[in-house]
Protein backbone atom coordinates (compact mmCIF):
# COMPACT_ATOMS: atom_id res chain seq x y z
CA UNK A 1 0.00 0.00 0.00
CA UNK A 2 1.11 3.56 -0.69
CA UNK A 3 3.03 5.38 2.05
CA UNK A 4 2.29 9.02 2.83
CA UNK A 5 5.97 9.87 2.92
CA UNK A 6 6.46 8.48 -0.61
CA UNK A 7 3.85 10.94 -1.84
CA UNK A 8 5.51 13.80 -0.01
CA UNK A 9 8.92 12.91 -1.40
CA UNK A 10 7.53 12.66 -4.91
CA UNK A 11 6.18 16.22 -4.94
CA UNK A 12 8.37 18.08 -2.42
CA UNK A 13 10.27 19.89 -5.17
CA UNK A 14 7.00 21.39 -6.41
CA UNK A 15 6.21 23.05 -3.09
CA UNK A 16 8.92 25.68 -3.30
CA UNK A 17 6.74 28.47 -4.65
CA UNK A 18 3.51 27.63 -2.81
CA UNK A 19 2.00 28.41 0.53
CA UNK A 20 1.61 25.06 2.26
CA UNK A 21 -0.65 24.31 5.24
CA UNK A 22 -0.65 20.90 6.88
CA UNK A 23 -2.53 19.18 9.66
CA UNK A 24 -0.91 17.84 12.80
CA UNK A 25 0.64 14.47 13.50
CA UNK A 26 2.27 12.28 10.90
CA UNK A 27 1.73 14.69 7.99
CA UNK A 28 3.54 17.53 9.78
CA UNK A 29 6.35 15.33 11.08
CA UNK A 30 6.93 13.59 7.75
CA UNK A 31 6.90 16.77 5.68
CA UNK A 32 9.47 18.24 8.08
CA UNK A 33 11.58 15.10 7.76
CA UNK A 34 11.50 15.39 3.98
CA UNK A 35 12.50 19.04 4.29
CA UNK A 36 11.06 22.06 6.02
CA UNK A 37 10.77 25.37 4.20
CA UNK A 38 9.72 28.79 5.44
CA UNK A 39 6.60 28.64 3.24
CA UNK A 40 5.20 25.62 5.17
CA UNK A 41 2.83 26.07 8.11
CA UNK A 42 1.97 23.09 10.29
CA UNK A 43 -1.28 23.39 12.23
CA UNK A 44 -0.37 21.17 15.17
CA UNK A 45 -3.87 21.18 16.69
CA UNK A 46 -7.33 22.58 15.92
CA UNK A 47 -8.25 19.56 13.83
CA UNK A 48 -10.31 20.47 10.80
CA UNK A 49 -9.05 24.02 10.39
CA UNK A 50 -6.14 23.46 8.00
CA UNK A 51 -8.53 23.61 5.04
CA UNK A 52 -10.18 26.77 6.40
CA UNK A 53 -6.74 28.35 6.83
CA UNK A 54 -5.92 27.50 3.22
CA UNK A 55 -9.17 29.11 2.16
CA UNK A 56 -8.40 32.29 4.12
CA UNK A 57 -4.97 32.50 2.48
CA UNK A 58 -6.36 31.83 -0.99
CA UNK A 59 -9.11 34.44 -0.71
CA UNK A 60 -6.70 37.12 0.44
CA UNK A 61 -3.88 36.16 -1.96
CA UNK A 62 -5.64 34.87 -5.08
CA UNK A 63 -2.42 34.92 -7.14
CA UNK A 64 -0.61 32.56 -4.80
CA UNK A 65 -0.66 28.79 -5.21
CA UNK A 66 -1.90 27.25 -1.94
CA UNK A 67 -1.53 23.58 -1.03
CA UNK A 68 -3.33 22.02 1.93
CA UNK A 69 -2.26 18.62 3.24
CA UNK A 70 -5.26 17.33 5.14
CA UNK A 71 -6.27 13.96 6.60
CA UNK A 72 -9.43 11.90 6.79
CA UNK A 73 -9.84 12.44 10.53
CA UNK A 74 -9.37 16.20 10.16
CA UNK A 75 -11.66 16.77 7.19
CA UNK A 76 -14.37 14.67 8.83
CA UNK A 77 -14.28 17.17 11.70
CA UNK A 78 -15.00 20.05 9.35
CA UNK A 79 -17.29 18.81 6.57
CA UNK A 80 -19.10 22.12 6.78
CA UNK A 81 -15.81 23.80 5.92
CA UNK A 82 -15.51 21.47 2.94
CA UNK A 83 -18.71 23.01 1.58
CA UNK A 84 -17.38 26.51 2.32
CA UNK A 85 -14.26 25.69 0.34
CA UNK A 86 -16.43 24.40 -2.50
CA UNK A 87 -18.54 27.55 -2.35
CA UNK A 88 -15.58 29.84 -3.01
CA UNK A 89 -13.55 27.27 -5.02
CA UNK A 90 -10.30 29.24 -5.08
CA UNK A 91 -8.69 28.53 -8.43
CA UNK A 92 -5.17 28.07 -7.18
CA UNK A 93 -5.84 25.85 -4.18
CA UNK A 94 -4.89 22.18 -4.20
CA UNK A 95 -6.44 20.18 -1.38
CA UNK A 96 -4.69 16.88 -0.70
CA UNK A 97 -6.35 14.54 1.78
CA UNK A 98 -4.22 11.64 3.03
CA UNK A 99 -6.80 9.00 3.86
CA UNK A 100 -5.42 6.24 6.06
CA UNK A 101 -8.92 5.38 7.30
CA UNK A 102 -7.85 5.89 10.90
CA UNK A 103 -6.91 8.26 13.68
CA UNK A 104 -3.34 7.07 13.60
CA UNK A 105 -1.68 9.18 16.25
CA UNK A 106 -4.23 8.31 18.92
CA UNK A 107 -4.28 4.53 18.67
CA UNK A 108 -5.28 3.89 15.06
CA UNK A 109 -9.01 3.67 15.62
CA UNK A 110 -10.94 3.56 12.34
CA UNK A 111 -12.65 6.65 10.90
CA UNK A 112 -15.81 6.51 8.80
CA UNK A 113 -13.75 6.17 5.62
CA UNK A 114 -12.87 2.67 6.89
CA UNK A 115 -16.53 1.71 6.59
CA UNK A 116 -17.15 3.23 3.20
CA UNK A 117 -17.46 7.02 3.47
CA UNK A 118 -15.92 8.25 0.25
CA UNK A 119 -14.16 11.61 0.61
CA UNK A 120 -13.72 12.24 -3.13
CA UNK A 121 -17.44 11.60 -3.65
CA UNK A 122 -18.20 13.95 -0.74
CA UNK A 123 -15.94 16.57 -2.32
CA UNK A 124 -17.73 16.29 -5.67
CA UNK A 125 -21.13 16.36 -3.99
CA UNK A 126 -20.06 19.45 -2.06
CA UNK A 127 -19.35 21.14 -5.39
CA UNK A 128 -15.56 20.88 -5.67
CA UNK A 129 -14.94 20.90 -9.44
CA UNK A 130 -12.23 18.27 -9.54
CA UNK A 131 -11.89 15.42 -7.04
CA UNK A 132 -10.32 12.03 -7.39
CA UNK A 133 -8.98 9.13 -5.35
CA UNK A 134 -5.50 7.76 -6.00
CA UNK A 135 -3.89 4.56 -4.76
CA UNK A 136 -0.28 4.62 -5.98
CA UNK A 137 2.56 7.11 -5.67
CA UNK A 138 2.72 7.28 -9.45
CA UNK A 139 -0.99 8.18 -9.70
CA UNK A 140 -0.57 10.66 -6.88
CA UNK A 141 2.29 12.44 -8.58
CA UNK A 142 0.38 12.64 -11.87
CA UNK A 143 -2.77 14.04 -10.33
CA UNK A 144 -0.81 16.45 -8.13
CA UNK A 145 1.12 17.77 -11.12
CA UNK A 146 -2.13 18.15 -13.04
CA UNK A 147 -3.78 20.01 -10.15
CA UNK A 148 -0.75 22.30 -9.78
CA UNK A 149 -0.78 23.14 -13.45
CA UNK A 150 -4.55 23.57 -13.52
CA UNK A 151 -6.69 26.56 -12.83
CA UNK A 152 -9.46 25.22 -10.61
CA UNK A 153 -9.87 23.97 -7.07
CA UNK A 154 -8.77 20.34 -6.98
CA UNK A 155 -9.13 17.73 -4.29
CA UNK A 156 -6.91 14.64 -4.28
CA UNK A 157 -7.75 11.84 -1.89
CA UNK A 158 -4.64 9.70 -1.47
CA UNK A 159 -5.31 6.32 0.08
CA UNK A 160 -2.27 5.62 2.27
CA UNK A 161 -1.16 3.05 4.77
CA UNK A 162 -1.92 3.75 8.42
CA UNK A 163 1.74 4.08 9.32
CA UNK A 164 3.77 7.06 10.45
CA UNK A 165 6.94 8.17 12.18
CA UNK A 166 7.87 7.07 15.71
CA UNK A 167 7.15 10.43 17.22
CA UNK A 168 5.32 13.60 16.31
CA UNK A 169 7.16 16.30 18.21
CA UNK A 170 9.76 18.01 16.05
CA UNK A 171 12.54 20.52 16.65
CA UNK A 172 10.56 23.33 15.06
CA UNK A 173 8.59 25.24 17.69
CA UNK A 174 5.02 26.16 16.87
CA UNK A 175 5.55 29.89 17.26
CA UNK A 176 8.81 29.92 15.35
CA UNK A 177 7.02 28.23 12.46
CA UNK A 178 4.11 30.66 12.66
CA UNK A 179 6.26 33.81 12.57
CA UNK A 180 8.54 32.39 9.89
CA UNK A 181 5.50 31.63 7.70
CA UNK A 182 4.05 35.10 8.16
CA UNK A 183 7.41 36.72 7.39
CA UNK A 184 7.79 34.60 4.27
CA UNK A 185 4.44 35.86 2.97
CA UNK A 186 5.30 39.43 3.89
CA UNK A 187 8.52 39.13 1.93
CA UNK A 188 6.99 37.69 -1.23
CA UNK A 189 3.83 39.80 -1.34
CA UNK A 190 4.84 42.98 0.45
CA UNK A 191 1.55 42.72 2.41
Amino acid at each position, binding site marked *: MMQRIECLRAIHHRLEDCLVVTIMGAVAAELQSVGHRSNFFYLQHAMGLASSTGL*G*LALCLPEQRVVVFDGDGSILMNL*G*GFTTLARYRPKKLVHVIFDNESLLSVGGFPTATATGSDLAALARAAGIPKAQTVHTAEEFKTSFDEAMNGDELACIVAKVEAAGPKGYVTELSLLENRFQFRRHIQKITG*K
Partner: protein
Amino acid sequence: MPVSLSNSQIVYDALKKCGIGLVSALPETWLVHLIRMAEDDPEMILVRLAKEEEAVGISAGAHFAGTKSAMLMQNHGFLASINGIVSFAQLYRIPLLMVISYRGHFGERDPWQTQGGLATEPLLRALGIPYSFLDDPNTVEKRIAHAQTLAASSLHPAAVLLTRDLMWEE
Protein backbone atom coordinates in the same frame (compact mmCIF):
# COMPACT_ATOMS: atom_id res chain seq x y z
CA MET B 1 -37.41 43.99 11.24
CA PRO B 2 -36.54 45.96 14.36
CA VAL B 3 -32.80 45.43 14.00
CA SER B 4 -31.28 48.90 13.91
CA LEU B 5 -30.11 49.74 10.41
CA SER B 6 -28.44 52.98 11.46
CA ASN B 7 -26.50 51.40 14.31
CA SER B 8 -25.52 48.46 12.10
CA GLN B 9 -24.12 51.06 9.68
CA ILE B 10 -22.12 52.65 12.50
CA VAL B 11 -20.66 49.25 13.39
CA TYR B 12 -19.86 48.49 9.75
CA ASP B 13 -18.25 51.87 9.19
CA ALA B 14 -16.14 51.38 12.31
CA LEU B 15 -14.90 48.02 11.00
CA LYS B 16 -14.00 49.63 7.68
CA LYS B 17 -12.28 52.51 9.40
CA CYS B 18 -9.89 50.18 11.18
CA GLY B 19 -8.95 48.52 7.93
CA ILE B 20 -10.95 45.30 8.02
CA GLY B 21 -10.76 43.69 4.58
CA LEU B 22 -12.41 40.34 5.25
CA VAL B 23 -15.41 39.41 7.35
CA SER B 24 -16.65 35.91 7.96
CA ALA B 25 -20.21 35.39 9.08
CA LEU B 26 -22.97 33.00 9.83
CA PRO B 27 -26.35 34.73 9.61
CA GLU B 28 -28.25 35.56 12.75
CA THR B 29 -31.03 38.07 13.23
CA TRP B 30 -28.98 40.91 14.70
CA LEU B 31 -26.28 40.53 12.06
CA VAL B 32 -28.57 40.73 9.02
CA HIS B 33 -27.82 44.34 8.08
CA LEU B 34 -24.10 43.96 8.75
CA ILE B 35 -23.92 40.94 6.43
CA ARG B 36 -25.86 42.81 3.71
CA MET B 37 -23.44 45.74 4.01
CA ALA B 38 -20.51 43.38 3.56
CA GLU B 39 -22.27 41.78 0.57
CA ASP B 40 -22.79 45.16 -1.06
CA ASP B 41 -19.23 46.34 -0.45
CA PRO B 42 -16.96 45.49 -3.40
CA GLU B 43 -13.87 46.08 -1.26
CA MET B 44 -14.89 43.56 1.38
CA ILE B 45 -14.25 39.83 1.18
CA LEU B 46 -17.28 38.16 2.76
CA VAL B 47 -16.95 34.50 3.71
CA ARG B 48 -20.23 32.73 4.40
CA LEU B 49 -19.64 29.91 6.82
CA ALA B 50 -21.34 26.62 7.56
CA LYS B 51 -20.21 26.77 11.20
CA GLU B 52 -18.44 29.49 13.12
CA GLU B 53 -15.30 27.57 14.08
CA GLU B 54 -14.20 27.72 10.43
CA ALA B 55 -13.84 31.46 10.92
CA VAL B 56 -10.82 30.95 13.17
CA GLY B 57 -8.96 29.19 10.34
CA ILE B 58 -10.09 31.78 7.81
CA SER B 59 -8.99 34.67 10.01
CA ALA B 60 -5.66 32.96 10.64
CA GLY B 61 -5.15 32.55 6.89
CA ALA B 62 -6.07 36.21 6.42
CA HIS B 63 -3.61 37.26 9.13
CA PHE B 64 -0.80 35.27 7.50
CA ALA B 65 -1.75 36.98 4.24
CA GLY B 66 -1.55 40.43 5.83
CA THR B 67 -5.30 41.13 5.72
CA LYS B 68 -7.19 42.35 8.78
CA SER B 69 -10.35 40.40 9.39
CA ALA B 70 -13.38 40.33 11.67
CA MET B 71 -15.62 37.45 12.70
CA LEU B 72 -19.34 38.22 12.86
CA MET B 73 -21.02 35.66 15.04
CA GLN B 74 -23.75 35.06 17.55
CA ASN B 75 -22.66 34.16 21.06
CA HIS B 76 -23.66 30.56 20.35
CA GLY B 77 -21.25 30.70 17.43
CA PHE B 78 -18.56 31.82 19.85
CA LEU B 79 -19.40 28.76 21.96
CA ALA B 80 -19.09 26.59 18.85
CA SER B 81 -15.65 28.08 18.04
CA ILE B 82 -13.92 27.59 21.36
CA ASN B 83 -11.61 24.74 20.38
CA GLY B 84 -10.40 26.68 17.37
CA ILE B 85 -9.90 29.81 19.46
CA VAL B 86 -7.84 27.95 22.07
CA SER B 87 -5.93 25.44 19.96
CA PHE B 88 -5.27 27.71 17.01
CA ALA B 89 -5.63 31.41 17.76
CA GLN B 90 -4.29 31.31 21.31
CA LEU B 91 -1.77 28.50 20.73
CA TYR B 92 -0.30 30.27 17.68
CA ARG B 93 -0.88 33.87 18.76
CA ILE B 94 -3.28 34.83 16.00
CA PRO B 95 -5.13 38.13 16.46
CA LEU B 96 -8.91 37.79 16.17
CA LEU B 97 -11.49 40.56 16.20
CA MET B 98 -14.70 38.88 17.29
CA VAL B 99 -17.94 40.82 16.87
CA ILE B 100 -20.42 38.81 18.89
CA SER B 101 -24.14 39.40 19.14
CA TYR B 102 -25.02 39.07 22.78
CA ARG B 103 -28.26 37.12 22.68
CA GLY B 104 -30.00 35.66 25.70
CA HIS B 105 -29.33 38.60 27.96
CA PHE B 106 -31.67 41.16 29.59
CA GLY B 107 -34.72 41.72 27.42
CA GLU B 108 -34.43 38.42 25.55
CA ARG B 109 -37.79 36.88 24.72
CA ASP B 110 -36.55 33.74 22.92
CA PRO B 111 -36.17 31.09 25.60
CA TRP B 112 -33.70 29.10 23.48
CA GLN B 113 -31.15 31.91 23.60
CA THR B 114 -31.06 32.29 27.37
CA GLN B 115 -28.60 29.59 28.40
CA GLY B 116 -25.99 30.78 25.93
CA GLY B 117 -26.51 34.29 27.22
CA LEU B 118 -25.63 33.19 30.73
CA ALA B 119 -22.47 31.40 29.58
CA THR B 120 -21.02 34.09 27.31
CA GLU B 121 -19.17 36.41 29.68
CA PRO B 122 -17.97 33.69 32.07
CA LEU B 123 -16.46 31.84 29.09
CA LEU B 124 -14.81 34.95 27.67
CA ARG B 125 -13.28 35.56 31.10
CA ALA B 126 -12.23 31.92 31.48
CA LEU B 127 -10.41 32.11 28.15
CA GLY B 128 -8.78 35.40 29.08
CA ILE B 129 -10.36 37.15 26.10
CA PRO B 130 -10.75 40.88 26.75
CA TYR B 131 -14.15 42.27 25.76
CA SER B 132 -16.17 45.43 25.75
CA PHE B 133 -19.81 46.27 25.06
CA LEU B 134 -21.21 48.06 22.06
CA ASP B 135 -24.22 49.67 23.68
CA ASP B 136 -24.08 53.29 22.59
CA PRO B 137 -23.75 54.49 18.99
CA ASN B 138 -21.47 57.30 20.16
CA THR B 139 -18.78 54.96 21.47
CA VAL B 140 -18.98 52.16 18.87
CA GLU B 141 -16.22 53.46 16.62
CA LYS B 142 -13.78 53.96 19.44
CA ARG B 143 -14.47 50.61 21.08
CA ILE B 144 -14.12 48.65 17.86
CA ALA B 145 -10.89 50.48 17.04
CA HIS B 146 -9.57 49.77 20.53
CA ALA B 147 -10.46 46.08 20.29
CA GLN B 148 -8.75 45.82 16.90
CA THR B 149 -5.67 47.64 18.17
CA LEU B 150 -5.39 45.33 21.18
CA ALA B 151 -5.92 42.17 19.10
CA ALA B 152 -3.18 43.27 16.70
CA SER B 153 -0.68 44.36 19.36
CA SER B 154 -1.23 41.39 21.67
CA LEU B 155 -1.61 38.82 18.86
CA HIS B 156 -4.61 37.50 20.76
CA PRO B 157 -8.39 37.41 20.35
CA ALA B 158 -10.40 40.44 21.49
CA ALA B 159 -14.18 40.66 21.47
CA VAL B 160 -16.87 43.30 21.25
CA LEU B 161 -20.38 42.34 22.32
CA LEU B 162 -23.25 43.75 20.29
CA THR B 163 -25.97 44.48 22.84
CA ARG B 164 -29.74 44.73 22.58
CA ASP B 165 -29.56 48.46 23.44
CA LEU B 166 -27.57 49.06 20.26
CA MET B 167 -29.04 46.51 17.87
CA TRP B 168 -32.76 46.32 18.63
CA GLU B 169 -35.36 49.03 18.07
CA GLU B 170 -38.87 48.64 19.41
